[in-house]
Structure formats: C-alpha cells, structure tokens
C-alpha cells in the first residue's frame, strides 16, 4: 500500500515535470503547429539539368520573388535560386520589367560600379557588365559554408515541403496547396 502511494506520487511528479517540460519546450522553441491538413505551402523545385549559364535574358514570370535591391534607376527582385528580375524604374509611376539576370543557385546579391556580386551555391561570383552588354564572370570557389540560404524557401513565415536531397538540387520554390507540410521557416 505504501509502495503504491509512493509510486503514484512518483508518477504524479514525473507527469508534472513532463508537462512542465512540454509546456516549456512549446513556449521556448519557435515551433509552429503542424498537421494542418491541406494548406498553402512552398514546394521545392528540383533541377533536372544543372544549368551553369550566367546570362541576361528577356523578362521572365515571377515564380518565387523574394528580396529587393535598388541600383541606380533599377529595382532588382530576387527569384529564389535562379537569379533576379530587372525592373527599369526610371519612372516610379510606371516601372517596366525589362529583363532577367540568370544566375544558377543564386539568392543574394549586391552591386557596385556595374559589377554584380552574387552567391551561386557555395561560390561567390563577381560579374562585370561590360559596355557591349557581355558579362565577365569571376568565380571564387567554395566561399560559403552551406550556400547562403541553404535549402529554405524564399520568405520566412511559410510552411514548406521538406527538402529531399536525393531528388537533386533545389533551384526554386513554388506555392501549392499540399497535405500536412512538415517543415516551417
């Protein structure tokens, strides 16, 4: 009888500690609620062929627009893992999407004196835009530890389908309504 009581108290103690631990973990960690059923989430797009082309092309559709930059009369909007959109903003009341800067595995840029500094996976590129429109690309190999953003969607605050490395390299993200995404950023 005495043993039972002790055990029961012990159980109660464990229960209380566990509960406190769970609550503490819940408050302390920034873990959102999962298993929400079908909700909007980011889904990774895996590369089928590894394009290494750094080039300026005609304007492209926005797929996963992210960060913004301003350079002279231009606005750049990053396109997750692909490069950035170029917007001619000479007239802020009527900006024109004028081209796309294709840089594989790129998520972050900075520009100085017609040179675009861009991450491309583990590498840092210095891309000089020459007066004839051609590009002089200098690649510093292996400057980054894990790629600057790793395998995360373009913007925080969204659920996403966890990345499966066996499917290839993530080159972009698209929003879809999917069942119970198990990752959040």
């Amino acid at each position, binding site marked *: 009888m005495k043993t039972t009581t002790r055990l029961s108290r012990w159980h109660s103690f464990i229960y209380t500690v566990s509960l406190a631990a769970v609550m503490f973990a*819940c*408050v*302390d*960690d*920034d*873990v*959102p*609620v999962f298993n929400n059923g079908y909700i909007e989430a980011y889904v990774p797009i895996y590369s089928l062929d590894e394009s290494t082309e750094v080039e*300026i092309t*005609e304007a492209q559709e*926005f797929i996963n*627009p*992210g*960060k*913004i*930059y*301003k*350079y*002279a*009369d*231009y*606005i*750049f*909007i990053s396109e997750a893992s692909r490069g950035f959109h170029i*917007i001619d*903003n000479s007239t*802020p*009341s*009527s*900006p024109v*999407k*004028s*081209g796309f800067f294709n840089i594989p595995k790129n998520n*972050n*840029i*900075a*520009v*100085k*004196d*017609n*040179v675009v*500094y861009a*991450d491309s996976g583990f590498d*840092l590129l*210095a891309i000089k*835009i020459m007066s*004839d*429109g051609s590009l002089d690309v*200098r690649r*510093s190999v292996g*400057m*980054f*530890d*894990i790629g*600057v*953003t*790793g395998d995360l969607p373009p913007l*925080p*605050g969204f659920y996403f389908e966890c990345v499966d490395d066996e499917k290839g390299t993530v080159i972009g993200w698209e929003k879809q309504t999917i069942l119970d995404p198990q990752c*959040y950023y």
Partner: protein
Amino acid sequence: MKKLNLILTIVLAFALWSCEDGESAFEFDNQGTSTSGSIAKFQIDSKYLYVVEENSLSIYDVTDFEQLSQLSKVYVDREVETLFRLGDILYLGTTSGVLFYDITNVNQPSYVSSYDHITACDPVVSDGSYAYSTLRSSNTCGGGSDVLDIINLSDISAPSLTASYDVASPYGLVLFDNYLYVGQGLNGMKVFDITDVTAVTEVVSYDEITAIDFIRDGENLIITTRTGLVQAKVGTDGTLSVLSKINY
C-alpha cells in the same frame, strides 16, 4: 556606285540599329552601390562586401572585381538571418537576438554586444541612436507575442530595451525620417511616428498592402508585398500615395 553606297548605308544602319537594340535591354552604365531591403544578407559599400551566412560574418575587398579577396570571416554562434550596416557597426538579426559588430578594422570584425530575446527574430534597422527590431512568433504553439523592440544604443556595449510595441506578424521594416514602416505580410503594414521612441504612435495602417520588405528611394518607398511590387510616395504626414504596382 550609288547603289553600293546605299547598300553600305543600309548595312551600316542595320548594324547600328541591332547594336542599339542589344544595349537597350540593359544599360548598366552606372557607378555607385546598391541598397537593399531589411531582410538582406549582403551589404556593400565603395570598398567592401559584407556577407552573413547562417553561422558566420565575412568581409570581402571589392575595390577591384578581378581581385576579389576575403579579408575576414568570423563565426557566430547564432542563427543569423539578416544584416544591416550603419557606419562602422554591423547589425546582425538572429533568431535569438540582435548582435552588434564593430568593423573599424575590416580584417578583424569585433563582437561588441548583443540584445537578446528568446523567440524568433526578424530584421533590424538603426539610426545610430536606436535599433529597431521586429520579433515575430506568430504560428508558434506558445502563442508568444509579436512585437517591435526599440533598443537604446547610447552605450552600444550595453544595449537596453527602451520600449516594446505589439505589432501583428511583423516582417521587414524601414526608417524614413521620423517614421518607421513595418511590413506585416497578411496583416498589411503599419506606419509609426517615432519622434519620441518612448511614446511611439501609429499614424496609419494599410491592410491592403501586404508588405514584406521596404527600400527608401528618395521621397518614395519601394515595397515588396505578398502579391507584387508597390511604389508609393511618402507624404509629410507619413501617409502613402501609391504610384504603381507590378503584380507577381
């Protein structure tokens, strides 16, 4: 002979025209540096490129693009998300607080101090006297608060919290004279008057501008939202007049 001249002229004109056409798509004939929104991980000035990765801060010499060199790299025992620079101070937004680094010596950035908190953090901006940091913990099971923290930097070795204001789901932010603009994603955006940081007042909110981040462009704001790129003129009272929108 006249015919030949004509043909030559046409060929020449065509050559010039195609040349012009090639350049009109892109004419980066500009000097200067880019500016970025508050959720950036790269910052640049006339000499240096600053980069944060998840666990590090590095500085590159960009004086000559053909001879890019890494001057320093320091490891940061935090999860770094954003980078802001003002003068010789770098402000690192991390998931557990704002970190301040002195970069007077670019070969050896030195950790100055941190302003710590327990939940997820978003970007930080500063006017030198105060740092403004948004803290978003929406969707967490603990239901923690979403706030804007104003941090006093009069002694940067010992930053202290001046005031904290509730703001639903805050993302990027930008200072514009006496106003602070805070993006709130699905919740729109808010404009605060920060003339007196201990008594910040909300000037106006825009539910329809689902702002994520901002760049100041002269008297205008460039705003990325969940649905597109918005540009707006800022009035003397801090209110916005939308100039244009490009939908995603």
